[in-house]
């Protein structure tokens, strides 16, 4: 006898997805509109100015936040992207990353705080995050497409789900690691819960939270490329074209652009994290 007729795991998941699609359509269209709006704004900001202005801005950001070396790398790397003719695609990838990361942080940091405050919440959150992180990234694409059709919106949603966990985890960790004496000191001076969070816990946890934000951005970038498979656009499309048409040149150029973008984002956010760590640890 086939036990799968009793407990059909895949089938039940499909049922749930179908039910959601039929009954929660309004919710998905609200989400879809919001994400679309965010994407539109970030694309407009990134793609409207002339390319050389944008390269100058990125170089300046690297100079002031990270170091001279990173700034030089940015200047050469982004000029190379421009030279390869991938500028518009790179900016649209950046817009996808930016939108997913903003949403991931808006959801992830509060979830992290909540997990740090309650062991019960954390006990539920932890396996959920494990699930989200270890489920193969491609699997997210299917329900994302079913709910949001093809295009950049399901790309952002899938990226969001994939990159959310480190933000939650490291916010939770950062707050739990605040030394007991600092919490006691804050309490002993008559802190309310809100003051405790805003004036003691979050600032002390900031370096750890920044590390989480860095991780979130890097995961988002890697997922955005995979999301090219469902028509998210950007560099992912270019890489996909290289694979499907077996064109090494196209794939390689797309890949190089992604690497340059990744290094830029990593160094700059890491520098932000180090700055806050320096402030708290000396």
């Amino acid at each position: 006898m086939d036990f799968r007729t009793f407990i059909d795991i895949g089938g039940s998941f499909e049922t749930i997805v179908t039910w959601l699609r039929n009954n929660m359509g309004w919710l998905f269209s609200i989400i879809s509109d919001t994400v679309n709006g965010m994407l539109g704004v970030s694309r407009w900001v990134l793609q409207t100015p002339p390319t050389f202005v944008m390269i100058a801005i990125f170089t300046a950001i690297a100079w002031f936040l990270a170091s001279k070396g990173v700034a030089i790398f940015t200047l050469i790397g982004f000029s190379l992207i421009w030279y390869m003719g991938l500028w518009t695609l790179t900016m649209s990838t950046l817009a996808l990353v930016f939108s997913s990361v903003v949403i991931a942080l808006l959801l992830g940091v509060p979830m992290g705080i909540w997990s740090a405050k309650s062991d019960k919440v954390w006990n539920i959150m932890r396996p959920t995050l494990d699930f989200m992180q270890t489920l193969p990234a491609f699997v997210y694409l299917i329900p994302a497409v079913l709910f949001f059709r093809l295009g950049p919106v399901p790309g952002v949603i899938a990226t969001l789900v994939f990159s959310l966990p480190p933000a939650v985890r490291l916010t939770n960790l950062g707050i739990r690691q605040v030394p007991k004496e600092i919490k006691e000191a804050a309490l002993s001076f008559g802190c309310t819960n809100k003051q405790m969070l805003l004036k003691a816990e979050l600032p002390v946890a900031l370096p750890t939270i920044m590390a989480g934000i860095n991780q979130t951005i890097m995961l988002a970038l890697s997922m955005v490329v995979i999301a090219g498979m469902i028509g998210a656009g950007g560099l992912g499309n270019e890489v996909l074209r290289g694979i499907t048409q077996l064109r090494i040149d196209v794939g390689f150029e797309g890949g190089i652009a992604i690497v340059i973008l990744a290094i830029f984002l990593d160094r700059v956010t890491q520098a932000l994290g180090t700055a806050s760590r320096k402030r708290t640890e000396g």
Partner: protein
Amino acid sequence: MALIQVNDLYKIFGPNPKRAIPMINKGISKGEILKKTGCTIAINGATFAIERKETFVVMGLSGSGKSTFIRCLNRLIEPTAGEILIDGEDVMKMDQDKLREVRRYKMSMVFQNFGLLPHRNVVGNVEFGLEISNMDKEERRKKALDAIKLVGLDGFEESLTSELSGGMQQRVGLARALANDPEILLMDEAFSALDPLIRTQMQDELLELQARLHKTIVFITHDLDEALKLGDRIAILGPDGRVRQIGTPEEILAQPADEYVKRFVQNVDRTRVITAATVGGRAATITYPREDLQAAIRAMERNKTSSVFVTDADRHLKGIVTIDAAVALQKKGEKDLASIIKNDVYTTSPSTPISDLLATAIATGYPIAMIDDNGHFQGAVSRAAIIAEVNKGYEGSDTEMPQTLSDLQDALQDGE
């Protein structure tokens, strides 16, 4: 009325802690209770009163519940049972708003590992408490700067706390606690994390500050020397979380309440704690000019001493007259003492520890006069009394006593 009155306070950690109290009262041991109920007793029926403006030291070894105790006072830890009255109000019955008010305005705490905020500079840390109580920016900055000056950190206002040494960091902690001018200072092993030299220096500074500010200080320590140095009164906690003795440093040294306290105080340098007033006493005195030479000689004969102190009618010390000088004067047939009153006699305050008097006592031929803060003569300390007190500390211990050379030579000859 005492400022802080603690009545029958219990703190028991573990599931359903209240059921352990009747077991404690039946005299069941700590270990037995832990085995039966899973409850650990931290504070075991503590009762005492802390007076206004005194430094009350709670002293105990680790695990005696002293840190738990201080956290019960501001309810960082919720006590299991009992009463904590501050100005007659029970802290344990306060709601969150009232409790927050007490924490903000009435008492501040200083922590062993400072508990400073690493992302703020010195002044930012010091004004933290004021900021929490929503004081406006300029006023709190001003008060914070005053507090920084008070602890001698001026010039470091903008430094990051991580750039400061341990002693300086604890000054920040102290300034933060003093900034809102609370009536009560709770100090939890405040100097225990500092190295010994800095610790001594901080203790001296705390004493100086206290002489100026007159706070009510509850000081927790595991270091008996620190307790004896800082405390007006000391409560000694036993390993069972029970208060073993409460008293002034001298009372605790002179009359330890039980074996535990006795063992504890055994190795203390008594001479640093026992004061002139304890070993000193009344001394032969005459009032000049009301009394004359005859009175002086009679006073010395009566008291069997070789000298007599001379005071005026208001008990201000004028000097000392020795028997030799008095007899010589009598032979000359004069009666006025004025020419033989010597003023090279040493004086001290009654609260000076005898360790500070020892060298003087050996050097001088006269007793050391005790004069109180108002300049009144209070009696004298004889050399014999000081040396006897110093010796008392060595009684029964295995210290090696010096021997005379002849004894040593005899011993050597016997050996051959």
